[in-house]
């Protein structure tokens, strides 16, 4: 590579440095600094008050509820996302474009509206409200509503990660499996799933990060009953509004830590798959 003239598409060194510098500056100011601030505020009075704030029964309940909502929503969206991606990538049917667009609807709609729709459907004044009340069923201001809102908001993550990959892979491997005598289920388990497993995991992790952090939609359907229908983001807001800064930031730090953990897992995964691809190349 010596004495090769600089390709026309390559910019001057100073321009590259300036671009990189700007990116680092923006990243630092807008992402890193606020994140750092959360941890600094949480630990302002030391570790013990922060841990005590997390050990508070209401905080523990919020943590439990957040994990529970994620534990229900994420598998639901994993199944739904795989099914949607499978349909869109491997089959042709009328309305396919519409479905593809609909999958992105939760990205386009404000989370508040995503929560409000469930209140409109299942709330006391909602379409199905009277019927639900007659049968003693609670959806809004209870766990089912929060799960519904979370599922709605986080649905696109898995499907959108999988669709381009599955479209790119085409259906020939599935067809080959069919000619070799495999049933639909065998084809899915032995051919389709292994081909998408890393992308699927990556989509699931993103979905999980968002499910734990969702505020707007969940806020609308939760009812904010302390110790019962408060997730971590809602609990943080309440603590903050009550001037319990250490508590608010301690829980916030924990939530941020969960998100960072998820992203770390995703990064590790990409490293591993990258290495695997390199070995096979």
């Amino acid at each position, binding site marked *: 590579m010596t004495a090769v003239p600089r390709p026309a598409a390559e910019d001057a060194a100073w321009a590259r440095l300036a671009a990189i510098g700007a990116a680092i500056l923006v990243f630092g100011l807008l992402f890193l600094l606020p994140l750092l601030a959360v941890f600094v505020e949480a630990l302002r009075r030391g570790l013990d008050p922060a841990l005590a704030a997390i050990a508070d029964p209401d905080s523990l309940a919020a943590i439990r509820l957040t994990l529970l909502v994620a534990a229900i929503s994420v598998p639901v969206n994993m199944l739904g996302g795989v099914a949607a991606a499978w349909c869109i990538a491997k089959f042709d049917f009328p309305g396919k474009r519409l479905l593809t667009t609909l999958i992105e609807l939760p990205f386009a709609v404000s989370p508040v509206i995503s929560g409000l729709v469930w209140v409109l459907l299942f709330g006391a004044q909602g379409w199905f409200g009277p019927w639900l009340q007659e049968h003693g069923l609670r959806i809004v201001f209870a766990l089912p509503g929060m799960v519904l809102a979370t599922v709605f908001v986080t649905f696109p993550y898995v499907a959108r990660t999988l669709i381009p990959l599955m479209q790119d892979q085409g259906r*020939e*491997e599935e*067809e*080959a*499996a*069919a*000619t*070799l*005598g*495999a*049933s639909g289920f*065998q084809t899915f388990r*032995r*051919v389709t799933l*292994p*081909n998408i497993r890393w992308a699927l995991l990556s989509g699931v992790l993103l979905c999980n990060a968002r499910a734990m952090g969702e505020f707007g939609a969940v806020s609308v359907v939760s009812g904010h009953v302390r110790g019962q229908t408060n997730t971590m983001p809602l609990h943080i807001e309440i603590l903050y509004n009550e001037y319990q800064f250490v508590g608010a930031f301690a829980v916030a730090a924990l939530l941020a830590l969960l998100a960072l953990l998820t992203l770390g897992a995703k990064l590790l995964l990409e490293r591993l798959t990258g290495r695997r691809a390199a070995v*096979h*190349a």
Partner: protein
Amino acid sequence: MSVEIAGLTRRFGAGRPALHGVELLVRGGEFVALLGPSGSGKTTLLRVLAGLDVPDAGQVRIDGRDVAGVPARARGIGFVFQSYALFRHMTVFENVAFGLRVRPRGARPREAEIAARVRRLLELVQVPELERRYPEQISGGQRQRVALARALAIEPRLLLLDEPFGALDAQVRKDLRIWLRGLHDRLGITTLFVTHDQDEAMAVADRIAILREGRVAQFDEPAALFDRPADAFVAGFLGEANRLPCRVAGGLAHFAPLPLAPVPAAVADGPALAFVRPAALVATPGGEGVVRGARHDGRVLHLSVQLGDTLLEATPAPGWEGPRRDDRCGLRIASALVFPADAAD
């Protein structure tokens, strides 16, 4: 395993159907090429046979049995895809073993038996050393052989290959097609393969089905297709030919205003189109034509001769040593295939 195809039609949306009443009768043990220009329905026909696509009308009988209701996985037909479609996350060994592993529990061979069969197949396709590799680690020709071994693992009654040599370079192509023909002769499996390369079809197939716009234009042995094409399309599609408009009267084709002697033609009187192979257009020294080009392909000398304002491909008469550019020459038609003009393209 015989294959009978009757009235097979397949439409994709509006417009001309991909298959339009295909009729074909393949005998057991035959090696058949489906040859045609792109868009002629070759691949669609293969996919319908395999059960990967569903016809809108018509029948497919394999060994006398209508397979309309039989799904792809129950047909026991080996299919080799143009892009091979090897399972990318499995080793070569697992790819070949796949068809055995997905059998229902009762019919599934033991692990040792599977291993033995996979190794036998990899020996057969001459790549036993590749069993631990992944598809992306081997060459195109090797993938082709692995794809074939995988298809053969289910002991198919019928083998279908879609452009089996399409993605390979010229020398590998030639070696593989000779080898494939040898393999077919040893195993005796009825085989259909799609190609758009007529040399390939001519070189290895027992019979060739020429497809055109979703129909079988002619199904015959290579020599017969060449010597007795059923219509103008086949005559023009196979091999090189000079197309000469002519007029038939009283069993003779006249080429006026071109200074060519009339030739016998067994078609009704009227305008017609004659196909004359370069080898059947003989150039002799002296005459109204002018040699515009001469090129030697190692065996024969090919001449481009201008006659009037038409450029024709011809062969020098035996004994005419070294015709050159701008030499004058005369042309004689040794044999021609004449078709009525209305049916011609």
